[in-house]
């Protein structure tokens, strides 16, 4: 749980939202971290200073949406959108809203995605960042609506749209309404694309199900973080269906790259630079004026 302590790095008052991200997470156990991949034990501070990437084996820890804002965007430029949207309970699932409330308090987000506008090395972009700490990043009405509104704003302001996905897929508790968010976000992306605008999708761990089968796969550039799990169906479901052994690297970013399903894999350390370059190369009027 050491990564939790990192939640405090973006504690300054974000546009209108006051959240104490530090409270429940600052206990001594957070001082040390054991890498789940290579089992190396090191100081949590070391991990924080390395963008939550294992210094020994390059394992990319999950990040919160706010953490990504702070490592990607120019300082102080991020303006969050649509924090006034709240999840309702269309299918009347018992304790659904309570679960939302708990995750909302835990993450400081109104739902599993943070959307807004900011700049990367001076270039204005609209960005959406999913947070798997909120209901596994699953997509219900609010997630679909926030992403769609962000895309529409990017279209309106003629800006690139960038998304970091992290999701288990459509949210079951909102039933077929969740499924339809796949279509809603896709029609919005089509309109954005028809305006000649850039969309970059960066798939982070994990990106599966309905999110993988909609906006996550629709980038002009489809990028992933190293070792991220990306796929349509779950590994267990596939194993039960086909009754064959799946390779160890099945559905990893590297597996997808090898099968021609990704444009590139970017290490977290180079993400900001590469994204800035991609945005620059797509600016209207060429790159010379930047």
């Amino acid at each position: 749980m050491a990564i939790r302590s990192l939640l405090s790095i973006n504690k300054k008052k974000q546009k209108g939202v006051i959240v104490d991200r530090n409270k429940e997470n600052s206990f001594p156990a957070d001082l040390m971290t054991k890498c789940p991949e290579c089992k190396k034990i090191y100081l949590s501070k070391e991990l924080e200073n390395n963008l939550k990437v294992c210094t020994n084996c390059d394992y990319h820890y999950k990040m919160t949406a706010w953490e990504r804002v702070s490592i990607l965007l120019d300082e102080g430029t991020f303006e969050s959108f649509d924090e006034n949207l709240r999840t309702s309970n269309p299918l009347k699932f018992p304790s659904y809203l309570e679960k939302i409330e708990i995750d909302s308090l835990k993450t400081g987000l109104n739902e599993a995605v943070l959307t807004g506008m900011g700049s990367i090395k001076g270039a204005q972009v609209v960005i959406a960042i999913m947070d798997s700490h909120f209901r596994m990043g699953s997509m219900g009405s609010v997630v679909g609506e926030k992403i769609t509104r962000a895309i529409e704003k990017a279209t309106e302001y003629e800006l690139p749209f960038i998304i970091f996905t992290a999701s288990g897929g459509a949210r079951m508790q909102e039933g077929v309404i969740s499924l339809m968010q796949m279509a809603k976000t896709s029609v919005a992306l089509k309109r954005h694309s028809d305006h000649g605008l850039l969309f970059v999708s960066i798939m982070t761990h994990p990106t599966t199900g309905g999110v993988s089968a909609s906006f996550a796969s629709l980038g002009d550039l489809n990028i992933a973080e190293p070792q991220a799990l990306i796929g349509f169906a779950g590994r267990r479901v596939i194993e039960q269906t086909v009754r064959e052994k799946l390779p160890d690297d099945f559905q990893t970013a590297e597996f997808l790259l090898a099968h021609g399903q990704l444009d590139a894999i970017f290490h977290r350390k180079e993400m900001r630079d590469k994204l800035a370059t991609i945005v620059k190369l797509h600016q209207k009027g060429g790159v010379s004026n930047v």
Partner: protein
Amino acid sequence: MSKSLDFEVPVVKLREKIQELKEIAKNADVDMSTEIETLETRLQQLETKIYTNMEPWDRVQVARHAQRPTTLDYINEIFSDFIELHGDRSFGDDEAIIGGIASFNGQPITIIGHQRGKTTKENIRRNFGMPHPEGYRKALRLMKQAEKFKRPIICFIDTKGAYPGKAAEERGQSEAIAKNLFEMAGLKVPVISVVIGEGGSGGALALGVANRIFMLENSTYSVISPEGAASILWKDATLAKQAAEAMKITAYDLKAMNIIDGIVIEVAGGAHRDVQAQANELKECIHNALTELTILSETELINDRYDKFRKIGEFIEEEVEVKVDGKVDVEVEVN
């Protein structure tokens, strides 16, 4: 005679009893016409009662009925001059999706649909109507072809879902589905989708970004199967019946949620009891929708589709404080 389903057992039993009485009366030389008449009236009442009060789970059973009409059945009944067109031009031909050109009341159209088999042998060939990426890519190829020749597109949705397999993942199942959602959004011709059986998740939606969406009365459309929902919700797949109810997957549920445009009423007991009558009902529905859509311009069709999906979603929008400079500032306290 097709196999009876659990919920219709009383009807079947009564029907058998009447048959039995008729046999007895014939051989025993006694007049039992009054008794038989009474029972036949009761049978009629029972049929009405059972077939008009079907539970979601009953409808799931009908939707999954082995003899339920498939895309091909409707193609044969509703359209003429059908020519099947195969292949995605890059990997292969996925028989879990069937597509082609035909005429509908004299008008050229493109038809695309999931295709189940009715026998085990056919189901193996068609992978139980669960497509691989090449199936979705074939569908998209035929949609773009329809667009070129300004033909309306009719899609039939009938799948448990996109196939969850190793090869499907390797060839980009997610991307294939996503690309269909994206490209269908921009089609310059009318698109009508009809759920005729099971509409399972993204694999169904990939033929569903339409101007008009209809569901046969006993079909279902859902984000996850009732069994899948039950095992996640209650860790018990045998509670599928309850899940079918909780997940709101029937045509009536989707109509109430304003996701679909209309319900195509089924013949009593389900479409499999009279394919021709069912096809006629469906034909009229498609005809009416096409009449509405053909008057729209290309831009209007695209905007119509946009608006249709744009409005789907249920959430609460809290009041925000509007500052003097017009900038919206959200005041939310979390703690």
